C-alpha cells in the first residue's frame, strides 16, 4: 500500500510538472520571453512542492497512526489483563496482529480475537484516512502552485531556495546520525546503570562478566557485570594485531615508497588493496578454518596447548586485515615528507637507509603514529573476526594461547541471544557506548596529530 502511495506521489508530481510548465506558456500566450522564469522552473516548483507534501504526508500518516493504534490497543489489553507484565501485553498484541493478518499466532483466545477485530477495523479506517490525506495534500499542493503561475512570478529563485534548503537538510543528516547514535546508546546505558544501582565502578573495574545470570525482577546483579575481562581480551587481541600489522605495514610502505621499482609497485599496491577489500567475515572464516587448526597443530608440535579459539588466532588474522590500512596511510605520510629533506640528506652523503631512518621516519613519525592509532581503533571495533575466531566466555588471562572474549563479541552474543531484548539491551548498549567513546577518542587524537603534522610542512 505504501509503495502504491509513493508511486502515486511520484506520478502526480510529474503530472504537476507538465501542467505547470504548460500553464506558464499559456499565461503569456507562447511568448516565453515575457516570463520572469523559464516554464520549466514553474514546472520544477510545482514538482518539488507536490513531492515534499506527498512524501511528508505518507511518512507522517504511516508512522503516527501505527503508534496511535498500538497505544490504544495496549491500553485495552492492560485493562483486560491488569496484573500481567508489559511483555505479556505485547505478546497479546503481536498475536492479535498475526490473527488479523491471518498468519500463525502463538496462541488464540477471546481477548486476542477481540483485539484482532479492533485492530483490523482501526487499520482499515486509518488506511482510508491515509489514502485520502495523501491524495488531498498532493492535489492541494498541485492546485496552489498551479494557480500561482504568473509572468512575474520568480519561480526560479523560489525553486533554488527550496533546493538550497533541501541540500542543507541532507548535510545535517550526518549530524542527526551522530545524535541518534549518542542518544540511543546513552539512553540504554543510563537504563543499565539504573539497574545496577548506579554502581558504575563495578562495570568499569569488576572482573566477573556474566550479566544475564543474575537477573531478578529487572534488576541486574552488580557483581556480575564487571567488564574488565572483556577490556583485557579486546586489548590483548588488538595488541597482537598491531604487533603483526605495524611492522609489516610500515616496512612494506618504506620499501614501496623508497626502494621499489615502478613494476613492483604496480603489482604490490593492488595486492594490498585486495587485502583491504576482503570482507571481514571472510577473514573470520579463514581464521576459524585455516589459521586456528594450523596454529593448534604447530603449537602441539612444540608442546604448547593452543586453544582452538585462542586470542593469538584472532589477533594474527586481524593483524593481516589491518596491514593494508597501516601501509597505505604510512605510504601517504612518507610520500608527504618534502623532497627537499631527502635531497639534503643525500647531498650530505647519506645512504637511502640512513635517510629513511634518520630523516624521513622522524619527520613522518606523527603520521605513522596516527595511522597506528586509526588501525588500533579499527581493530578494537572489529567484530566478525573475533566473533568467528575468538572465544565467548569471559576469561581473564594473560596467555595468548587461551580463549578470550572481546567487547564486540559480547555485544553480538547479547543481542542475538535468547534472552528477552529488554534485559540484554542494557549491557550490550553500554558496551557499545564504551566502544564508541574509545574509538572516537582515538580518532580525534589521530586527527589532531595529523593536522599538526600537516601544518608543519605546509
Amino acid at each position, binding site marked *: 500500500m505504501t509503495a502504491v502511495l509513493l508511486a502515486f506521489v511520484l506520478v502526480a508530481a510529474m503530472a504537476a510538472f507538465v501542467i505547470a510548465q504548460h500553464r506558464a506558456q499559456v499565461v503569456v500566450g507562447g511568448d516565453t520571453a515575457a516570463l520572469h522564469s523559464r516554464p520549466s522552473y514553474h514546472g520544477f516548483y510545482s514538482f518539488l512542492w507536490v513531492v515534499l507534501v506527498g512524501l511528508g504526508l505518507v511518512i507522517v500518516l504511516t508512522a503516527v497512526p501505527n503508534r496511535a493504534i498500538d497505544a490504544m490497543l495496549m491500553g485495552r489489553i492492560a485493562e483486560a489483563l491488569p496484573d500481567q507484565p508489559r511483555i505479556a501485553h505485547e505478546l497479546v498484541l503481536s498475536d492479535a496482529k498475526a490473527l488479523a493478518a491471518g498468519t500463525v499466532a502463538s496462541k488464540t483466545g477471546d481477548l486476542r480475537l477481540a483485539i484482532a477485530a479492533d485492530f483490523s477495523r482501526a487499520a482499515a479506517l486509518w488506511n482510508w484516512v491515509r489514502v485520502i490525506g495523501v491524495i488531498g495534500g498532493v492535489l492541494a499542493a498541485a492546485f496552489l502552485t498551479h494557480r500561482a503561475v504568473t509572468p512575474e512570478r520568480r519561480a526560479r529563485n523560489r525553486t533554488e531556495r527550496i533546493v538550497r534548503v533541501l541540500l542543507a537538510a541532507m548535510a545535517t543528516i550526518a549530524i542527526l546520525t551522530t545524535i541518534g547514535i549518542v542518544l540511543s546508546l546513552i539512553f540504554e546505558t543510563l537504563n543499565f546503570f539504573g539497574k545496577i544501582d548506579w554502581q558504575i565502578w563495578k562495570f568499569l573495574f569488576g572482573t566477573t562478566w556474566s550479566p544475564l545470570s543474575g537477573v531478578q525482577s529487572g534488576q541486574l546483579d552488580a557483581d556480575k557485570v564487571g567488564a574488565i575481562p572483556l577490556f583485557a581480551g579486546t586489548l590483548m587481541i588488538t595488541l597482537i594485531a598491531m604487533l603483526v600489522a605495524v611492522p609489516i605495514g610500515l616496512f612494506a610502505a618504506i620499501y614501496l615508497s623508497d626502494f621499489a621499482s615502478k613494476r613492483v609497485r604496480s603489482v604490490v599496491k593492488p595486492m594490498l588493496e585486495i587485502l583491504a577489500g576482503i570482507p571481514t567475515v*571472510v577473514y573470520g572464516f579463514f581464521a576459524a578454518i585455516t589459521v586456528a587448526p594450523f596454529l593448534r597443530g604447530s603449537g602441539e608440535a612444540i608442546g604448547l596447548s593452543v586453544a582452538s579459539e585462542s586470542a593469538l588466532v584472532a589477533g594474527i588474522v586481524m593483524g593481516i586485515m589491518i596491514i593494508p590500512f597501516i601501509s597505505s596511510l604510512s605510504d601517504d605520510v612518507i610520500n608527504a615528507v618534502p623532497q627537499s629533506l631527502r635531497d639534503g640528506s643525500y647531498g650530505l652523503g647519506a645512504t637511502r637507509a640512513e635517510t629513511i631512518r634518520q630523516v624521513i621516519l622522524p619527520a613522518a613519525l606523527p603520521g605513522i603514529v596516527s595511522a597506528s592509532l586509526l588501525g588500533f581503533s579499527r581493530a578494537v*571495533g572489529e567484530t566478525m573476526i573475533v566473533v568467528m575466531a575468538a572465544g565467548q566466555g569471559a576469561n581473564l588471562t594473560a596467555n595468548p594461547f587461551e580463549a578470550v572474549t572481546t567487547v564486540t563479541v559480547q555485544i553480538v552474543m547479547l543481542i542475538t541471544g535468547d534472552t528477552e531484548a529488554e534485559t540484554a539491551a542494557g549491557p550490550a548498549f553500554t558496551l557499545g557506548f564504551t566502544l564508541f567513546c574509545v574509538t572516537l577518542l582515538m580518532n580525534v587524537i589521530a586527527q589532531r596529530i595529523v593536522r599538526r603534522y600537516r601544518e608543519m610542512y605546509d
Partner: protein
Amino acid sequence: MTEITSTGHYGSLLGDKATALGLRRRRNAERRLKAYGITAILLAGLALFALLGSVIWQAAGAVTEAYVTLPVELKADDIDPDATGDPKIILRGDFNGLTKDALKAAFPQVTGRSARRELYDVVSSGAAFELADHVAENPSLVGQTINFRFLASDITDLYLKGSFGALRPLPTAGRLTVALDGDEATLNSTEADFAGVLAVLKDQLVDDAKRLRVRAARQNNAVSVYETRIAEAADDDARAKSLAALERARTERDALLAEAERLEARAADTGAEDLDDEVRSVFVRAGGGWLKLTRLDASGAAAEVLAPPAGALADLAEWQLLTTDLPAAARKVSDTQIMVIEELRSGSAVDSVFNWRFFTAGDSREPELAGIWGATVGSFWTMLVTFLLAFPVGVAAAIYLEEFAPRNRFTDFIEININNLAAVPSIIFGLLGLAVVIGFFGVPRSAPLAGGMVMALMTLPTIIIAARATIAAVPPSIREAALGVGASQVQTTFHHVLPLAMPGILTGTIIGMARALGETAPLIMIGMVAFIVDIPTGITDSATVLPVQVYRWSDFPERAFEARTGAAICVLMIFLVLMNAVAIVLRRRFERRW
C-alpha cells in the same frame, strides 16, 4: 693542488680500513632494510595467497553434486488412490515412504533398524520432495515404476568426493572359502591372506602408538619446562600457576603414554584381533556379497554379513579384500553406507553434475539442498535501498558543503562529524539500527528495508567524502565561466560542476557500496541472521544477505557446509571484484585530471 687530487690521496682515503669497514656496514644496513621491506611484502602476499587459496580449496567441494538413480514404484494407493490426477492431491502423497521403499527394494539385504536408517541417509531428505514435484508434473506416471535420480545426501556426496578417504584393495593370493551362519560368517583362505591383513592392521596400530608417543614426548618437554620454571619462580603466585600447568602436562603425558602402551600391547599380541571402531574397517567382497571382518587371526577371520553373497562360497579365486583409510569412529559414513554406495557405484547408478542447485536454491538445514540465491536476492534488495538512500543524500550533502555552505562553526562541526562517522565501528551502526530504525521507526526486523537504512547511514560518510573530493577538484574557472554568463549558483552547480564531478562521485559510491555489500556485523544486530528459506520478493520481506549467510554456514557443524561456505565466499568476492572493476573502468574512462 695537483698533489692533493692525485690518485695517491684518494687511494689512501678508500684504502683506509676503518672507512672501508664503515662503508660496508652502511651498505649492509641498507641491504637489511631492503630485506625487511621485501619480507614484509612477501608475508602480506603469503597471507593473501593462503586466504584465497583456502577459500577456493574449500569451495571446490561444492562444485558438483551427486545423484543416485534408483527404480521407484509409484504405488497409486500411496499417491492418488482415486486416480484424480490432481497435482494438489499428488503432492500430499507419501513420497518419503516411496523413497524409502525404493531404497529397501534396492538393498533388501540391509535389515535392522539402525542399518535401515543408515540406508535411508544415503539419499537426501529433500529427494522425496523432488520426486513429488516430478510426479505432480507428470500425473500419468502414477502406478508405474520409474528410474528416478535421487539427490544424494551430504554424507554420500562427501564419500564420493573422497573426503572420508578411499576404499583401498589389499592383495589376495589364495582361494576363499566362506561358511555362512545367519548374520555371521567364517572365512578361510588357502594362502596367508588374512595373516597379511593382520600384519597391516598391526602396523597401523604401531604407527598410531608412535604418533601418541611423539605427542607424549612433547608433553614431557613441557613438563621439564614447567619444572625449571617452578624452581626459578620468584613468588608463590607464579609457582602455583606453573604447578597447575605442570600437573596438566603430566596428566596429559601419562594418558598419552598409557594409550600408546595399550595400542602397542595390542599390536604385539600375535593372537586374534578384534576389529572395532578404532581400527580401519576391512571388507571382503565376494560373490556379490559384502562381509565386514570382525575378528581376525593368522589362519582366518570371522565376519559380519552386510550383504549376503548369492550362494555358498567355496574355493573362490575371484574375491576382493578392501580396507578404509579411516576407522569408523573418525568418519561420518558408516560401513553399511560404504557398502551401499560402492554397490551403487559399481552398478553405475551414481552420477555427479555441476551444482546448479547452489545458485538457484534458498537456505536449508541440509547442506546438499542449501543454496545462495536467497541471500543474493536479499543482498540485492538491501543494496538497492542503501543506494537509493545514500546516493542522493550523500551527493546533496557534498554539494552543500562544497558549493553553498558558509565557512562557519556549524559547517566545521558537520565536517568533523562526517570524518568521525567514517571511523565509527560498524557494530555501533547496528545498535543504532536496532534502537532507531527498528525500535523507533518500527521498520520490520530482518527486512532489507531496515538493513538498507542502516547500511545507508554507514556508507554516507564514504560517499560524502569521495563526492566532496571530486567536486572540489573541478577547477574554479568552470564555475566562474558559468557565473560570468549569468547562471545562478544553483544552475552553475547542477548544470556544470555536478556533471563534471559525476564519474568521480560514482566511483566513490561504488566503492562505498562494495564495502557495504561485505558488511556483516550491523545486519546481525538487526536480525538479518535468521533462518530464511524463502526468496525475498520485496524490501519488507524477511531476508538475509551474502556475508551473513557465510557467517551462518560457517557456524554449522556439518562438514559439507564448509564447502558451501567457501563457495558462498567465492560468489560474494566475484560481486565485489565486479563492482570494483566497474569503479576502475569509470575512473579510467571518464575521470578528468584538471
